[in-house]
C-alpha cells in the first residue's frame, strides 16, 4: 500500500460556513480500490467533506487531489467522480433507461454506444427489465439501484455515496450492504461512503475515518477502530465501553502502569507513550462475571447487579461496583440454561484480562 499513489488526497482541508467551521484541517489519503467510510455523528462534517470531493463545495483552505489532479476550480461536471445522493435524485420525468443514459448523452457519447453501456450498467444492479419504467413505479431500493447504475455507467475513478442506506428499511439495508461490497469488488472502483451508522462502516469499509465536530479522530481499518480506539470519542462512538478515569504512573517494558481511580495500580500492555490523566476502558463483551473472586492476573471488581437487559442472543448486565462506577457486562446466551443465572441484587465479580484494557490517551 505504501508504494501505491493515493487516488484521493485531502491535504489540510478546512471549510468554513460563515463563523461555523464544518471541516477543520482534515487530511486523508484514500487508496485506489479501497472501500473507505467517513463515519461520524450528524453535523461532524462528513457530508461537507464528501461534497467537496464532488465539487459542490469549495474548501476554504487546503487542497484536494483526485487521481493526481488538483481539484481547485474544477467544476462538478469535470471531475472523475460520481455521486449517489441520499435522496437518490433520480430524475422523475425520465425512464430508468434515460436516467442511466443521461450522463453519457450530455457528454456526447455516440448514440450507438449508449444503449450497450446502459444495459450493462442496469444488469450490474439487477434492473435489466426495468429500463422502460418511470421512477414513480419503482420501490425505494430500486430507485437507489438506478442511482447506482447512473453513476457507475460513467466509469468514475471514485464513487461517492452519501448515506446510501439511510432511507431503506432494516432488512433491505442489510442486503444492500452485502450488495454494495459485492458491487465494489466487481467494478473495482474506489468507494467513499458517508454514514453515521457504525455497523454500516464496520461491516463494509476497508478503512474508516471517524469524524467529530469537523476533526478526524482516527483513520483505521474497522477491527483496529474497535479493538484499539485512540480516544474516548472513538471508543464510545463505535460500540459500548466501560470507562474508568486513570492516571499514568509509569512505564515498564511494554506495559503502562496506570493508577485507576478506586482500583489501585494496574499494568496494562500498551505500545505508545502516555502521561498524565488518561481514560481506561473495557468493552462489555470482554468482561467476565463470576460469583467467586477470579484468579490472580485478571483485573477484578466487586459489584451488585442493578439491572438485567435481555436481547435474545445476549444479555447486558449492569453492575454497581465498589468504586462507584457503573459497569456493563455482555453475556452470551449461548446455551439454553447457562451456568450463571443473574438476578437484580446479586453480588458478583466482574473481571477482564489486562490485555483487553483500552488505553485512551486522547
Amino acid at each position, binding site marked *: 500500500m505504501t508504494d501505491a499513489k493515493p487516488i484521493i488526497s485531502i491535504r489540510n482541508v478546512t471549510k468554513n460556513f460563515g463563523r461555523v467551521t464544518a471541516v477543520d484541517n482534515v487530511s486523508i489519503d484514500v487508496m485506489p480500490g479501497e472501500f473507505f467510510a467517513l463515519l461520524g455523528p450528524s453535523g461532524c462534517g462528513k457530508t461537507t467533506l464528501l461534497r467537496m470531493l464532488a*465539487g459542490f463545495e469549495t474548501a476554504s483552505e487546503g487542497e484536494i487531489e483526485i487521481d493526481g489532479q488538483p481539484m481547485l476550480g474544477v*467544476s462538478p461536471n469535470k471531475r472523475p467522480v460520481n455521486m449517489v*445522493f441520499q435522496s437518490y435524485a433520480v430524475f422523475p420525468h425520465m425512464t430508468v433507461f434515460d436516467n442511466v443514459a*443521461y450522463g453519457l448523452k450530455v*457528454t456526447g457519447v455516440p448514440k450507438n454506444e449508449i444503449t450497450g453501456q446502459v444495459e450493462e450498467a442496469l444488469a450490474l444492479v439487477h434492473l435489466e427489465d426495468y429500463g422502460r419504467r418511470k421512477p*414513480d413505479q419503482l420501490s425505494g431500493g430500486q430507485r437507489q439501484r438506478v442511482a447506482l447504475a447512473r*453513476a457507475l455507467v460513467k466509469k468514475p475513478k471514485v464513487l461517492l455515496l452519501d448515506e446510501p442506506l439511510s432511507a431503506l428499511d432494516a432488512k433491505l439495508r442489510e442486503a444492500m450492504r452485502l450488495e454494495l461490497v459485492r458491487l465494489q469488488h466487481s467494478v473495482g472502483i474506489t468507494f467513499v461512503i458517508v454514514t453515521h451508522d457504525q455497523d454500516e462502516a464496520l461491516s463494509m469499509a476497508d478503512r474508516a475515518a471517524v469524524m467529530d465536530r469537523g476533526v478526524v479522530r482516527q483513520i483505521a481499518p474497522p477491527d483496529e477502530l474497535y479493538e484499539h480506539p485512540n480516544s474516548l470519542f472513538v471508543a464510545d462512538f463505535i460500540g459500548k465501553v466501560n470507562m474508568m478515569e486513570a492516571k499514568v504512573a509509569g512505564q515498564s517494558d511494554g506495559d503502562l502502569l496506570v493508577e485507576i481511580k478506586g482500583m489501585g495500580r494496574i499494568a496494562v500492555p500498551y505500545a505508545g507513550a502516555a502521561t498524565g490523566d488518561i481514560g481506561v476502558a473495557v468493552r462489555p463483551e470482554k468482561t467476565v462475571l463470576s460469583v467467586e473472586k477470579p484468579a490472580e492476573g485478571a483485573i477484578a471488581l466487586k459489584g451488585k447487579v442493578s439491572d438485567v437487559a435481555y436481547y435474545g442472543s445476549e444479555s447486558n448486565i449492569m453492575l454497581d461496583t465498589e468504586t462507584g462506577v457503573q459497569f456493563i457486562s455482555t453475556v452470551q446466551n449461548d446455551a439454553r440454561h447457562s451456568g450463571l443465572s443473574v438476578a437484580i441484587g446479586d453480588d458478583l465479580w466482574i473481571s477482564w484480562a489486562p490485555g483487553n484494557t483500552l488505553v485512551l490517551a486522547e
Partner: protein
Amino acid sequence: MTDAAVSRRRRRREVNPLEYLKRPWMWLALLGCFVFLYFPIVTLVAFSFNSYKRAFVWKGFSLIWYEKAMNNASLHEAFINSMHVAAVSTVVSTALGAMLGLALYRYWFPWKGTYEGIIHLPIVIPEICMAVAMVTFFWAVGIDLSLTTVIVSHIAFTIPFVAVVIRARMAGFDVSLEEASRDLGASEWQTFWHVTFPYMIPGLVAGALMSFVLSLDDFVITFFTAGVGDNTFPVKIYSMLRFSVTPEVNAASTVLIVITLSLTLVAMIMQSRWTKGPKE
C-alpha cells in the same frame, strides 16, 4: 337484545360531525350559494339563444344572435385584437415571470424580502390605480396609446402571477436533482434544459393560462391604455351595452365564457397529468 339493538338504532340516526350532506339545511345553504353564484351566468347564456330581440323575454330558441355577432365587423375586430394582445402578453410575461420566479427561488440578495413584497403589488393594488399609473406613465414618456401600450400594460400586471406560480412550483424542487445532473457531466445550461425546465412545465402552463385569461378578461387597464378605436373584446361588449341591450351581447359574452372555461379545463387536465408524481 336490546342494549345493542337500541344503540344500533340510535347510531343510524346520528350524523357524524363531518357528514355535512346528511343535514337538510346544509343542502338549502348549498342551493342558495349555487343560485347566487351561477344564476346570472346561466341566464346570460340562456338568453343568448333567444329569438326575440329584448334581452329578458323568452320567445324561442335560435342562433340568430350568434350569427349577428359573427357578422359584426367591429366585434370581430375586437375579438382578433383581444387574442393578439393576450397571446403576445402571455408569451412575454410567462418568460419574464418564470425567470423572476426562478431567481427568487434560487438566489439570495440584499433586500430580497422587500423586493418580494413589491412584486406582489400589481396583484393587490386596485386595478384602477394600476391603469391610471400606466396611462400617466405613457403620457409622461410621450408614447401614443395603442394596442402596443395595452400589451405592455398587460405584461406588467400578469408577470407577478406567473412569478408566484413558478415560485410555488419550485418550492417542491429537490436541488440534488440539479447537483446530480452536474455530477453526471452536464453543464449548467444542459442541467437547466434537461432537469429544471421539465420540472417547471406544469407551473409554466398554469402561469401562462392564468395570464392569458387575465389579459383576455381585462377591462379597466385595457380601457385606459388603449388608443382611440383600439377595442378589445370586453371593451367592445361594454360599448355595445351602452347603445342597446340585445342578445348579441349575450352571445358575445357566451363565446368569451366558453373560451375561458375550455382553457381552464385544458390547464387542469395538463396539471393532473403532470403532477401524477411519485406516490410515496
